């Protein structure tokens, strides 16, 4: 059964909705298992993430991270590549942001630093994807495996660098000095006080993320390179036969993907923490997989999925505050279930739905 047999709204609306509903249903069962009321939990979650200005601000802050990592996974998906190294690429991307901010923050205002931070994070993130990309293109070593390895190598490397080279002199904390104003993006609360974002760290990088969405859309659907990427992903053999270079496509796609993942660090490091520190990625890279799957690898879908996961993060934090039995680990469970139902089990409901939407003709094969 191919996607073409279903109306578009079913393929892009109903099926993701059903998958999501199944994930939340099972999440509800977990809440019952812990001995709490799932409906009350949903109420707290939604209110905590959307009910007031500061909550919305936090939701959008987390969503910014997920847009970057989701786009990173999605771009690679289009070329048939699975980049699960977003975690490491974003971590290393922090280096690029930190270098730009540490070098410039005392001399220029933030809007001069920002382009350098964007270039720095994208370049370091892309550099971290280069070796896996090259190995996939030239040696055929599976990019999934090498990017996993590079996540762990990144983690060790960053701990070493922060502990030994980048640490503020005289401090025991493995982190750089705090950036001056020239290395800090303005909070949206300061730009638009009327929204009442309060202390939420949502900042200007939200607009960088939205711009990235637009650029990715243009790239994938409106450029020659995007056409090559999609052709290669749809049928590598045919694409090669048509004269598309596999090495070039794989390497460029992975560099773009790594660069997008690296840009996540702008939001965390330049937008919120104002210093480079250990483990600031904490799973955002992996959640990008779920975001890309949910969003069907389309920028609009990714924005929606990113907001959904942002709500989960912020609402989940609120939830663990209101219902101490439900710790923040519940968010990880829900993410796991969403990845499971929207990703690995995405075909589970499809045969039934195809049957529902196919006019009953005796010639149509019924089994999936």
């Amino acid at each position, binding site marked *: 059964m191919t996607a073409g047999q279903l109306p578009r709204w079913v393929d892009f609306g109903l099926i993701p909705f059903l998958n999501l509903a199944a994930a939340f249903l099972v999440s509800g069962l*977990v809440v019952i*298992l*812990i*001995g709490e009321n799932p409906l009350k939990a949903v109420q707290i979650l939604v209110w905590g993430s959307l009910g007031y200005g500061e909550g919305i601000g936090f939701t959008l802050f987390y969503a910014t991270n997920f847009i970057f990592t989701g786009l990173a996974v999605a771009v690679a998906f289009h070329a048939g590549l*699975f980049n*699960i190294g977003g975690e490491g690429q974003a971590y290393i991307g922090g280096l690029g942001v930190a270098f730009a901010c540490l070098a410039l923050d005392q001399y220029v205002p933030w809007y001069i630093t920002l382009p350098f931070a964007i270039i720095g994070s994208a370049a370091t993130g892309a550099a971290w994807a280069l*070796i896996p990309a090259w*190995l996939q293109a030239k*040696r055929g*070593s*599976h990019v*999934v*495996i*090498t990017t*996993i*390895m*590079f996540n*762990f*190598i990144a983690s*060790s*490397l960053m*701990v*070493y660098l922060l502990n*030994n080279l980048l640490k503020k002199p005289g401090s025991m904390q493995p982190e750089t000095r705090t950036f001056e104003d020239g290395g800090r993006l303005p909070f949206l609360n300061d730009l638009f006080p009327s929204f009442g974002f309060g202390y939420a760290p949502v900042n200007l990088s939200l607009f960088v993320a939205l711009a990235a969405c637009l650029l990715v859309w243009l790239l994938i659907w409106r450029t020659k390179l995007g056409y090559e990427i999609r052709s290669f992903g749809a049928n590598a053999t045919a694409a090669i036969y048509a004269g598309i270079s596999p090495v070039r496509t794989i390497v460029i796609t992975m560099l773009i993907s790594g660069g997008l993942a690296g840009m996540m660090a702008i939001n965390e490091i330049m937008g919120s923490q104002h210093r480079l520190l250990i483990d600031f990625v904490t799973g955002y890279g*992996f959640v990008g*997989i779920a975001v890309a*799957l949910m969003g069907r690898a389309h920028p609009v879908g990714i924005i929606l999925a990113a907001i959904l996961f942002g709500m989960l993060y912020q609402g989940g934090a609120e939830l663990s505050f209101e219902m101490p*039995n*439900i*710790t923040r*680990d*519940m*968010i*990880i*469970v*829900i*993410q*796991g*279930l969403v*990845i*499971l139902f929207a*990703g*690995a*089990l*995405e*075909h*589970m409901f499809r045969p039934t739905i195809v049957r529902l939407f196919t006019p009953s003709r005796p010639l149509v*094969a019924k*089994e999936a």
Partner: protein
Amino acid sequence: MFEDFILILDSTVRLSTPLLLACLAGLYSERSGVVDIGLEGKMLGAAFGAGTVAYLTGNAWIGLLAGIGVSVALGLLHGFASISNRGNQIVSGVAINFLAAGLTALLGQTWFRQGGRTPSLPEGGRFRDVAWPLAEQVREIPIIGPIYAELLSGHNILVYAAFLAVPLTWWVLFRTRFGLRLRAVGESPAAVDTAGISVTWLRYRAVIACGIFCGFAGAYLSIAQGSGFGVNMTAGKGFIALAALIFAKWKPASAMFTCLLFGFLDATAIRMQGQEIPGIGEIPVQFFQALPYILTVVLLAGFIGKAIPPKAAGIPYLKERS
């Protein structure tokens, strides 16, 4: 000096055991064509199951069974997603890692209220070290004594089980009909199907075997090496096992040597912490931690032989419609 070396080897054996068990688990799964990056999650789930049940019953064996049960259940979930529903095996593995990480911490906190840890195990809830006969008497004999008393004797039973599982796995894979079919289904499922053998059932048996071994690996962490479950106690061991599997080119004996090598790196790193090497200086501990991954990437780059995965690994099998 010799004593020191024996001590490092001794901790090498202890540290490589969970890697070896998880690596063999992955071997069964991947040889059948089901890629499993959920080894980490299954180990974690098993460690939690074993820690919980061993605490409640005070019996390490029942704990082990519970660990295996949890791990096999997660394995069947992976099978349901990737064999029955032909879902993406990588995505399914990622989901299992998330589920295990979240559920173990969440349930641990709900049930025991110790920040996600399980309480310390009672006497009998833990696999004790087994002293071999005459270990104390022969300790004084030079060379052989320490080797016998420190290195061979004095481990818990799961350590010996892990190393015995290596020839067992070799025998199953290369000397039984099941093993032949398992390897065949990982290379060419269509051929196996043509021969009238169920691809689905073979692969399910492979993921169950994978679950059993991951169960041992997880139980080793929480009720043999440690005394109770701790949040995220696998700490990436499942991924090191995955790296070891690739490094060993999906072969049982090589898997053992690779896991011993990775365990040795770990043991050396602990030993070398803060120590100067003449001429080189202090090697950062992070270097040792990253070394297994770096070595695997170097291998994948083709500088030390070539790692060729089973041909059908990662590809769901679609029986042609009649």
